């Protein structure tokens, strides 16, 4: 199907935002990086708002959003509820940050981690549709979580290094970026592999022809593979994820995230965007002939 850019940006930016918020909550649990907490909170909030604006661009009639909005079986409704819950937790977290000079109680940090993960799972789950074999996989959800795992820790490490000027990186900080990048590589590669076997789920019509569009080529289901010609997004997603991991190792070795934090974040972002592009390119329905 055609690329849905507002949704691509929304899902990617939300993964970044939730990943960063969850990471700063992990830092709060460890009692490190207090001076980076406020910049991280602001960055996460900005990403959430920009992602929110992007998704509104997808709606043809956003002004009707409260005209019956709230059908609970809808993934969009569930996403909205999860975003509101995350926003409430984030505001409470901010209040504690302001009150305690960058320190947040453990209960709110745990709550922040949980709602961030729940939001990502709910958001990705809304795309799990039996009609779209390449989307209907738990590994699709894990791939979004993987994107959050690389972008969140890398951004936080950068903020600690540059904005908060905390000096030499903490070993825990290094481990978090490397582990997050490794999770992203694994999640991306597995989801690409899952998409490649989704082709077996398309209905087979043999030879067919659309009499109402005689000059249009019909859909070729064999072309719906992450490894078919023109699927540049596959290579970009995987290579960018691997480069992010390599950057994480270099950053860990140097103990300085002022440059490598940016490299890992950007590569993670490119990988996530490419994977979402591939997601739509592979988004054929089981009965794909129109």
């Amino acid at each position: 199907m055609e690329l849905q850019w507002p949704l691509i940006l929304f899902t990617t930016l939300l993964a970044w935002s939730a990943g960063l918020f969850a990471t700063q909550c992990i830092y709060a649990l460890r009692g490190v990086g207090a001076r980076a907490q406020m910049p991280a909170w602001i960055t996460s909030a900005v990403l959430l708002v920009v992602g929110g604006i992007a998704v509104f661009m997808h709606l043809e009639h956003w002004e009707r959003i409260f005209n019956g909005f709230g059908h609970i079986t809808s993934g969009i409704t569930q996403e909205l509820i999860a975003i509101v819950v995350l926003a409430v937790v984030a505001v409470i977290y901010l209040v504690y940050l302001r009150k305690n000079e960058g320190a947040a109680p453990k209960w709110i940090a745990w709550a922040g981690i949980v709602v961030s993960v729940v939001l990502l799972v709910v958001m990705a789950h809304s795309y799990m549709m039996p009609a779209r074999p390449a989307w209907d996989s738990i590994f699709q959800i894990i791939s979004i979580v993987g994107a959050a795992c690389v972008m969140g820790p890398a951004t936080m490490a950068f903020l600690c290094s540059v904005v908060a000027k905390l000096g030499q990186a903490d070993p825990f900080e290094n481990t978090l970026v490397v582990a997050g990048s490794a999770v992203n590589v694994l999640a991306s590669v597995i989801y690409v592999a899952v998409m490649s076997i989704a082709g077996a789920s398309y209905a087979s019509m043999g030879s067919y022809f659309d009499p109402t569009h005689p000059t249009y080529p019909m859909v070729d289901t064999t072309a719906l593979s992450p490894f078919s010609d023109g699927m540049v997004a596959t290579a970009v997603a995987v290579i960018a994820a691997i480069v992010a991991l390599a950057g994480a190792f270099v950053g860990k070795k140097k103990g300085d995230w002022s440059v490598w934090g940016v490299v890992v974040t950007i590569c993670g972002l490119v990988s996530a965007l490419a994977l979402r592009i591939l997601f739509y390119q592979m988004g054929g329905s089981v009965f794909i002939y129109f």
Partner: protein
Amino acid sequence: MTQYAIVTDVNRCVGCLACSVACKVVNNVPVGSFWNKTLRVTNPSEGGSNWPDVDNYYLTVSCQHCENPECVKVCPTGASHKLPDGTVQVDKSKCIGCQFCAMSCPYGVRYLNEAEGVVEKCTLCEQKIAQGELPQCVTQCGGMARWFGDMEGDIRDFKGARGETLGNYCEEFTDDQVYRLPDVGNGPAGAFILRRMTWRGGDL
């Protein structure tokens, strides 16, 4: 419980596209959108591939007014809903144009009306069937291939354009010659009768 649907006798369909055209006219379907499309399926017949020994049939595809429609489930505003007569309808005043219904439909039969910014599809001519009339594609079917009725009853009682019933007018068929489009849990209500040829597309 009623479950209105269309049964197509595929052996009778001549691929004239009258159903597609009639649908566009009576429902003012925008250019580029087809609430009812026709696919020509041509393959070697089972057991031999000597031309013209082929299976050739036309498959008319529109909203299947599913028993468990995924489009209704994913709609955030309840714009897509199921009526007591079993048909799936779109309340345009509630539609926000998110198109998740179109993504969740296995058959690609939902279209975004770009002028109105809402998703549309076959209504089974609700404006007509609510008054006891037939959907326009059934009325207009030149091959007497399309039949309308309640799937809760016997499909042989489905009505055609001239008042006949499917059971009285069409060639006899067995239950295993009645097919559905691929079912991924949505339970398509529409059915297709195909004899002496190999049904394609239901092998999920």
